[in-house]
């Protein structure tokens, strides 16, 4: 059989690289389109409200459960460590910094990537496979403006209060554990939290919410839009959306913290 260039290892690497850069180009143009169409939000306000409910109110239980669990775990583990140094009263301070700067937004981001991102990927992927996205284009409606932009705006708006809720519930569960497990007076715990938190701590935490909103929405929707290969293809694109957005959230979490802490 004839051995073509494509079947050789350099040929396959070349093809993969070409596909990767073409996908990146498509993703960039797709993202740009999503932002450019934001002025059309008044036209799609019903879609925006639907998505705000899905991303916000409907996601509240998973955000609460995960942030309460993380807050409680931090209180137990960090409290044990501080006890060894006789610094148990610093538990409020260390928990607050961890939750507000890092773990509150990060856990919320990962949970929303799994919940909101997977829903976007599966729903849009199914629409792509059943030609509903082609139908939108064929009848003169911009599918990015109709399907992606309201999701993006909804996520940008509701992820901020969700972060606040995640932070507060995480801290509150830590305070409860501090009181009942480490026998730290709540007054001492909260006194170590609020007077010592500075503006920079909130900027680090709350800046992550819109960054994660952009990553989760655009990555998951893009993967839905390029789904192909029937129902198995929808599954593949959904998984890809979650894996890529979760990875990007972890990377972005590090860089947002680094940039803000170094420059404020």
């Amino acid at each position, binding site marked *: 059989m004839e051995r073509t260039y494509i079947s050789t290892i350099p040929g396959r690497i070349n093809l993969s690289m070409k596909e990767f850069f073409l996908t990146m180009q498509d993703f960039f143009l797709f993202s740009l389109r999503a932002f450019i169409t934001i002025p059309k939000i008044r036209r799609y306000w019903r879609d925006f409200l639907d998505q705000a409910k899905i991303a916000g109110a409907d996601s509240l239980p998973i955000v609460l459960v995960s942030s309460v669990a993380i807050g409680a775990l931090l209180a137990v583990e960090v409290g044990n460590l501080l006890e060894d140094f006789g610094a148990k009263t610093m538990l409020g301070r260390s928990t607050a910094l961890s939750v507000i700067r890092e773990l509150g937004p990060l856990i919320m981001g990962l949970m929303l990537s799994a919940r909101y991102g997977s829903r976007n990927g599966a729903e849009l992927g199914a629409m792509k496979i059943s030609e509903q996205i082609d139908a939108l*284009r*064929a*009848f003169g409606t911009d599918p990015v403006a109709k399907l992606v932009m309201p999701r993006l705006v909804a996520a940008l708006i509701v992820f901020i209060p969700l972060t606040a809720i995640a932070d507060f519930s995480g801290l509150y569960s830590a305070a409860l554990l501090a009181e009942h497990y480490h026998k730290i007076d709540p007054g001492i715990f909260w006194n170590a939290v609020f007077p010592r938190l500075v503006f920079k701590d909130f900027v680090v935490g709350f800046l992550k919410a819109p960054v994660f909103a952009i990553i989760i929405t655009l990555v998951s929707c893009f993967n839905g839009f390029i789904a192909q290969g029937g129902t198995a293809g929808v599954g593949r694109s959904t998984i890809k959306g979650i894996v890529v957005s979760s990875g990007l959230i972890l990377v972005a979490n590090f860089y947002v913290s680094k940039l803000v802490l170094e420059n404020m």
Partner: protein
Amino acid sequence: MIELQDITLRYGTREILNNVSLTIEDNKIKAVLGPSGVGKSTILKLILGLIKPNCGKILIDGIDITQLKESQLYPIRRKMGIVFQGNALFDSMSISENLGFFLRENLKLSEKETERRVAEQIAFAGLEGYEDSLPENLSGGMKKRVAIGRALIFNPKMILFDEPTAGLDPVSSKKILGLISSLRNKSDLGAAIVTHIIDDVFQVADSVAVLYQGKIIFDDETGKLHDSTHPFIQSILSDKILEQ
């Protein structure tokens, strides 16, 4: 009028269409006949500008759409209605919402006029009483009629059918073909049908183009198909339903 001039389309190294030229006239029903997977549906997507050819021109009323941006294509697409093979109805919307969706999206009509047009299409499709049903609760034939109604609701100049009777039972197929034939009575409406079922062509099409191995091997009036000596056409005339 729709004209495809020397269209070539490749996916990677695979050539789907090779130098295809085709004309679909206004007020006529044109069929594109060919085996499954030969690129018939691709022709419809090219006409709508959903995909672009590697070379060649696609003229819609004299405008070459291969040179247009996506936003410039929207007004051109509104001249045409399409009925997808899988219908592509919005499964979260009721039948009347599906029918009215693009009117509300793209035309600034009064709600009264929108409702009038929706009611007109529901009556045309014979779906009275199903206005509030979801597509999942309808039979295949009923979904197809809703999809035809959705394509007609804009009063397009041309309607494109992708395998209109594929997967339907004989009774539903007959109803759909009857519905397509009745479109002849609508003024200024042309249609293009891609199909692999030769009986559909003889029942509704004024002219037919046969697509085989990426090329048009026949393009003339439907009645003249029997005169063709091409071996593939001779074989399909005896087999009736094409399989590759």
